[in-house]
């Protein structure tokens, strides 16, 4: 066999192995085993002993037999590389479920979770939101002293249910594996030093968070309070809450009864129709109702197709392709001409249906995207993707386009997304990237990492943003958000009432308050709370009010 032939066999084997590494998963995947066999045959070809013709039988056969043994050793080595390097991290964190439903995890993960003193989580004032306490036996247990922030922080149950939200997203920092001096971390790993995880400092103000909890008073829903210019999240509350302390489990630390209690609590949470495990501010998808009119108005103004004073007709009923939109919001049923500003302040559905049609599906879709609809809001942890319509083609249906214009139709938004819409308007048209973890703090109190202050994207021009801000102010001034006004502050806002077909509608409020150079926006939803001005607006107003009270 020629040198060329041998070389191509060798590289063929390499290619097959490379393909196997990338194309298959698991080291006993049947395809992978066949590829290994093929690679082995090619390797044997390329290494087959040359010029053995003249040799005695035994010498010739022994040389060949050695080659086969060598190839086998090579295949074993390749498989070792696969298990120990290529698939290493996938395997070590792999969770398997037995036929009887029991879960098997890597017992080393459990030990790591027991041995590392997981970092604390503080609010912006240094109050402890998640703590790790040492037990009598030298192991550590995680506790969450504040229930109002617990769902935001997430549960930490590495044994059984895993990790969520901040506990999951910042696991490496909290475990002391990333964020500090890499050499030191590596050395700690090599020397098996007792690890102390790093602490997180949040932008959350526990007082405001607790106030949000108090205002929601157990009603399912969500509250987001953030700084429009920085993206700092001051309060992010979802109700109902759950108690992560009751889900914390380390096998071998808990008795059978305790584990049974944990499992019972888990079942209870999962069977609860109010779904406490869904963190609504980022993962609750709701129809935004009239709060979406801010986006429609911003689009029509930014595209130059209308100004605040452009007159629209509202005769009380509007028909488009068989769909009849009835106007229920006119303060004066006999008046038919309304400016854009008035239409927004009085939340006139008929006008906004026309605005949707005027924009057309392409432009409305485009502006909604600029405001972040149709994707996940970039945040500290993964958030659910919002949507404008089921797909782009669907919006070509003019009835749906009209519905979308005033915030019904197929739009789905999270409370965080709706807060960002207002924040963009108040920040000269630019959406900041929202964040909740401010800093990572090392063992000696040194700041290891700081987050925040990043732009996400521009929604509209600065001039358009000023005009839309006027709309929000007008709504509070003479429109339906009048109840939001606060003495001494500049306040604007938009309520929303998301009709659900049956029963009470969802109650929305998105608004802002300004004093000096500080602008805070709020987004509140109370599920089945009725009209926006009744349930959601008072919560938002009280929160904005409290946020601007001088600290005692």
């Amino acid at each position: 066999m020629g040198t060329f032939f041998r070389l191509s066999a060798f590289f063929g084997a390499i290619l097959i192995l490379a393909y196997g590494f990338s194309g298959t998963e698991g080291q006993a995947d049947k395809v992978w085993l066949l590829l290994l066999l093929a690679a082995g045959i090619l390797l044997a070809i390329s290494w087959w002993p040359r010029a053995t013709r003249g040799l005695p039988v035994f010498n010739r056969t022994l040389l060949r037999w050695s080659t086969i043994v060598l190839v086998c050793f090579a295949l074993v080595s390749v498989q070792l590389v696969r298990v120990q390097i290529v698939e290493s991290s996938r395997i070590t964190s792999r969770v398997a479920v037995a036929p009887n439903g029991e879960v098997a995890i890597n017992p080393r993960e459990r030990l790591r979770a027991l041995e590392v003193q997981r970092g604390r989580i503080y609010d912006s004032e240094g109050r402890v939101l998640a703590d790790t306490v040492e037990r009598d036996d030298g192991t550590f247990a995680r506790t969450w002293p504040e229930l109002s922030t617990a769902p935001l922080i997430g549960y930490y149950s590495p044994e059984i249910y895993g990790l969520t939200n901040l506990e999951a997203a910042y696991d490496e920092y909290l475990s002391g594996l990333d964020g500090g001096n890499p050499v030191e971390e590596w050395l700690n790993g090599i020397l098996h030093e007792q690890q102390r995880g790093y602490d997180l400092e949040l932008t959350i103000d526990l007082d405001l968070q607790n106030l949000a909890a108090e205002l929601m008073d157990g009603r399912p829903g969500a509250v987001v309070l953030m700084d429009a210019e920085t993206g700092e999240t001051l309060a992010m509350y979802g109700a109902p809450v759950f108690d992560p302390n009751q889900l914390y489990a380390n096998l071998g630390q808990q008795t059978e009864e305790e584990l049974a209690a944990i499992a019972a609590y888990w079942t209870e949470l999962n069977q609860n129709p109010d779904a406490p495990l869904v963190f609504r501010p980022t993962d609750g998808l709701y129809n935004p109702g009239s709060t979406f009119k801010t986006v429609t108005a911003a689009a029509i103004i930014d595209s130059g197709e209308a100004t605040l004073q452009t007159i629209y007709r509202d005769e009380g009923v509007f028909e488009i392709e068989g769909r009849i939109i009835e106007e229920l919001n006119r303060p004066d049923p006999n008046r038919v001409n309304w400016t854009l500003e008035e239409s927004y302040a009085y939340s006139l559905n008929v006008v906004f249906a026309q605005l949707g049609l005027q924009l057309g599906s392409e432009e409305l879709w485009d502006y909604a995207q600029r405001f972040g609809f149709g994707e996940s809001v970039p945040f500290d942890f993964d958030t659910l993707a919002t949507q404008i319509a089921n797909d782009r083609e669907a919006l070509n249906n003019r009835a749906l386009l009209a519905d979308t214009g005033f915030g019904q139709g197929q739009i789905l938004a999270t409370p965080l997304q709706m807060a960002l819409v207002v924040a963009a308007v108040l920040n000269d048209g630019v959406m900041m990237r929202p964040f909740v973890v401010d800093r990572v703090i090392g063992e000696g109190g040194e700041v290891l990492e700081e987050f925040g202050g990043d732009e996400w994207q521009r929604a509209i021009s600065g001039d358009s943003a000023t005009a839309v801000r006027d709309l929000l102010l007008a709504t509070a001034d003479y429109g339906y958000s009048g109840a939001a006004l606060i003495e001494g502050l500049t306040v604007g806002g938009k309520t929303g009432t998301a009709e659900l077909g049956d029963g009470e509608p969802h109650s929305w409020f998105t608004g802002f308050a300004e004093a000096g150079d500080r602008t805070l926006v709020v987004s509140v939803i109370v599920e089945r709370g009725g009209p926006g001005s009744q349930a959601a607006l008072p919560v938002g107003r009280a929160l904005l009010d409290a946020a601007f009270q001088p600290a005692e």
Partner: protein
Amino acid sequence: MLQRIRFTELQLLIVPSAMTVVGLLTIYLASTRDLEWEWRDIWVSLAFMGAVFFISFWLSAIDFKGDQVLFPIVVCIAGLGLLVLQRLAPDLNEIDPAAYGNLARNQIIYLAAGLMLLLGVCTFVRKIGWLRRYKYTWAFAGIAMMTLTMLIGTEINGARLWIQVGPFTVQPSEVAKIAMVVFLAGYLAENRDLIVSQYRLGPFRLPPLPYLAPMVLMWGFSVLIVVMQNDLGTALLFFGVFLSMLYLASGRLLYVVVGLVTFGTAVYVAYNMFDRIGVRVTGWLNPWADPLDTGFQPVQSEYALATGELFGTGLAQGHPTFITQVHSDYIFSAIGEELGLMGTLVVLLLFLLLVFRGFYIALNAQDTFKQLLAAGLTTILALQTLIIVGGTIRLIPLTGITLPFVSAGGSSLLTNFIIIGLLMRISDPTVTR
């Protein structure tokens, strides 16, 4: 006098013996988490070091002219095995004192006995040739031992591989494998020409069937082991050694192909008939489907290997004892966790060196019998390594077979040292018969 000294061997022994001393010290310090230690804490390694240097000097003293590379390689592997077991024993003892209480002590005794055997073979078995004269005796003895195991053997973990002799459990298949190789080497060396010859029957060319009869017997016997003892590993080993020796002697690929195909068919039938083999196959292809029962060991082994990554956790710093059979079937996973890919590749490389040195000895042996004997004995080590390591990392189904010189188990350790002794003896150019 000075020419007698085995300098190459002495030099090659320095690193492996130092490794066992440093390694044991590492284990001791890591488990006490302290920097205090005394020499007696690592007496095992010091004794081991003393023993191997004593053996080397002894071989020099008796003017032994055999190979000088083989012994250091074996010392390196056996030293690693010593370290791993000394490291595992305390942890296993904590889990189940009744079963593992004597593990560490027994390992030391077996290792000492093994080294003595090696020395004995090199010193007293001056000539190898006599072995072939009793080839049928060996074959009979081997078969008798295996048959006895099948009839009166003790069953451990579902496989009947052991015979209780007083306080000891002996694994006869370990001794039988040497007997088989000696027999095959003798038989094939004698009848080699006949086996290669062909005769015509009408239009067909047929192999010399009468002379292949003992071979067919071997085949049947291997299948019998699978069926009677539920022991695919030993069967695979016996049959693999048999086929490779047949090929080495005859150069006939056809025999190998026929052997493989028929054996494969027989195993496939057995797979469908016997649960235990079926369990092995599931444990090989998809242990994650049943991680707490049949897949428990493979899954735990995989966690251990994957935890090791490139450099491993360090000796006594990992948790290999989550695998319950870690001291025997899964010892390679313990190496993988604590010494990482570097460690496992080094172990493989050492075995490869050992095997190639064995083949080198076979090439240079003086007559056909010795050639076949050396190649056969080396093939035992090669196949055993490949079968158990391949099973551990799920290249093939796992079968209960020992990793030579590393896994716990007296019979295996002693037999493997005899194999090394025989190889060294064969490599002695001054002994002509």
